[in-house]
């Protein structure tokens, strides 16, 4: 935007212009303050207890020194892995449907539904997973938590996949068709590989979103003070553990909660920054 060339502007207009632009700048500055405050607090209070045993031991009863969150870290990873098994295929499949076959009424319905699902509060999704899995199994389980998280991944992945697939230039498809390659083969071997970096980043975006989710796990994965490697047993998860420890009346629990927060936030921030970095140079530039 060019700056104002003319000098003979009434002082009142000049003043209101300066005030408005100053206010916008100030707003932008204020918005960054909470980020730094939160990050600084998490690092400052989480770092002291960030020891090796935090990653290798399971929680000790309150009052005993030490203990870690190894089971919660592994639990979170397993939850994410199983959730990906549900969310990634369905998300990509839906994205392909929307991009390749969804230029019609049905596509619009699916698109609208995906947006609805994206807006459903995570706790309501947790309730659904509870009703679907926990009630039928009659106990809390890793599977139930993964179903909840997997459902949350679907709309994020599908809408981004659709966007990156649509960015694949039309001539590439036409070239494949011209060689007599059927549509499904074109999609699988030409379009999806071309857009693969975009699809991968959409998956990471979904990861970053669900890795910190607590509400949908409260009555599905439930939490566990010990190791669990089984699909149908309750399992510990990092965000759940943070919540449980934060509302306990023990200083030691709070300390562990801050350290867990530091670990969780580091994982998520790294994912987002890598996502931005890849997105900035890959297919989905402009999609973010």
């Amino acid at each position, binding site marked *: *935007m060019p700056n104002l060339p003319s000098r003979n*502007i009434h002082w009142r207009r000049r003043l*209101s*212009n300066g005030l*408005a632009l100053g*206010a*916008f*700048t*100030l*707003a932008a500055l204020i*918005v*960054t303050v*909470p980020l730094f405050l*939160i990050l600084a*607090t*998490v690092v400052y209070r989480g770092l002291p207890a960030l020891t090796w045993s935090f990653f290798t031991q399971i929680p000790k009863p309150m009052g005993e020194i030490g203990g870690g969150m190894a089971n919660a870290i592994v639990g979170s990873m397993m939850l994410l892995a199983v959730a990906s098994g549900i969310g990634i295929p369905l998300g*990509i499949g839906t994205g392909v*449907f*929307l991009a*390749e*076959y969804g*230029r019609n009424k049905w596509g*619009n319905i*699916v698109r609208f*539904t995906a*947006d609805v*699902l*994206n*807006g*459903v*509060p*995570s*706790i*309501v999704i947790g*309730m*659904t997973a509870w*009703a679907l899995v926990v009630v039928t199994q009659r106990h809390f389980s890793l599977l139930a938590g993964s179903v909840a998280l997997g*459902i949350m991944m*679907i*709309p994020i992945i599908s*809408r981004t996949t659709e*966007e990156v697939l*649509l960015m694949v230039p*039309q001539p590439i498809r036409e070239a494949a068709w011209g060689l007599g390659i*059927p549509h*499904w*083969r074109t999609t*699988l071997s030409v379009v999806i590989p071309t857009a693969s970096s975009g699809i991968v980043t959409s998956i990471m975006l979904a990861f970053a979103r669900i890795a*910190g989710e607590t*509400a949908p796990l*409260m009555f599905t994965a439930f939490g566990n003070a010990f190791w669990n490697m089984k699909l149908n047993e309750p399992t510990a998860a990092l*965000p759940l553990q943070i919540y449980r420890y*934060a509302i306990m009346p023990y200083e030691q629990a709070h300390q562990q909660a*801050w350290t867990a*927060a530091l670990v*969780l936030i580091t994982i998520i921030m790294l994912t*987002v920054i890598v996502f*931005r970095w890849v997105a900035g140079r890959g297919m989905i*530039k402009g999609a*973010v």
Partner: protein
Amino acid sequence: MYTVPKPSAASGSRLNSETGPAISEPGESKELNIVPKSRLRTKESLFADVAFRSLVSLCAVALVGTVGLILFGLISQSHLSLSKFGFSFLIKTIWDPVEENFGALPFIYGTLVSSLVALIIAVPLSLGTALFLTEICPRRLRAVLSLLVELLAAIPSVIYGLWGIFVLAPFLRVYVEPFLAKTLGWTGLFTGPKYGFGMLAAGVILAIMILPIISSITREVIRAVPRQQREAALALGATRWEMLRMSVLRNARSGILGAVILGLGRAFGETMAVTMVIGNRPEIAKSLFAPGYTLASVIANEFTEAVGDTHLSALTEAALVLFAITLVVNALAGLLVWSITRGAPSRTLA
């Protein structure tokens, strides 16, 4: 969503603007429907095409089915409460698991008021940020600043809650609440005992959490305003602020409203951070210092400990109310934003 855009000035400017390669180039979406009708097509390849199409359609059906399942599950589980309390569930203020008498008004009130407080704080800040980022900010700084705002959206809710308990609530109790009570106490909104935990704390936390989504969608909307509009205003001798007011904000207002409503939808459904700082007491108090309760937090706190069927059913009905509110709010917002940008809501990180 990507139907052929009208060859209007709006779509022209999107090609020029920094949104990058526009996804909806005129005509492109129509061509996508052209599936080669090869005469040499073998039976197998025809079968494979149909199979592939069925497979991806099945994924889409699964997505629609999931939403249907959520709705069905909520309605069937809350049946008991629906038939027992009927409409009075929405207007009663009693929440008594022992007597099995449930009314959700305090939670609805808490959800609305905490989100409203959040909007009052977040809207001016995020509008200012969006305008700064699109119109004033130097290019280099823009990338950094927008990354910072996005990182704010990436912080998990439970960490906001943790920070709220140990940093924000004590800060509010010691510094902000006494100040507000002294200066604005006469309004009745800032009176009573100062716990730190309460409606105000929930509002502040929610405001921080919805800032990124409002500002990033507002940016999309502002970018979609045709460049010619700005140039016309500047050519007439407008100052930069006058240009923003007359051509940008005026053209983008329905989209900005959509962004605000979308933020509101996010605030309604937010659970963990709010549960950790709102105080969790089912009361309706005028003062923002007083503890409150929201629909999402009551579910989070009581669902695993619900004893009777009626209690469980009432909690599910609370979830149904929450679902209905967010559905309406999100649909409205999506429509408003879409009318400006043709498909922007999905393009944001938050």
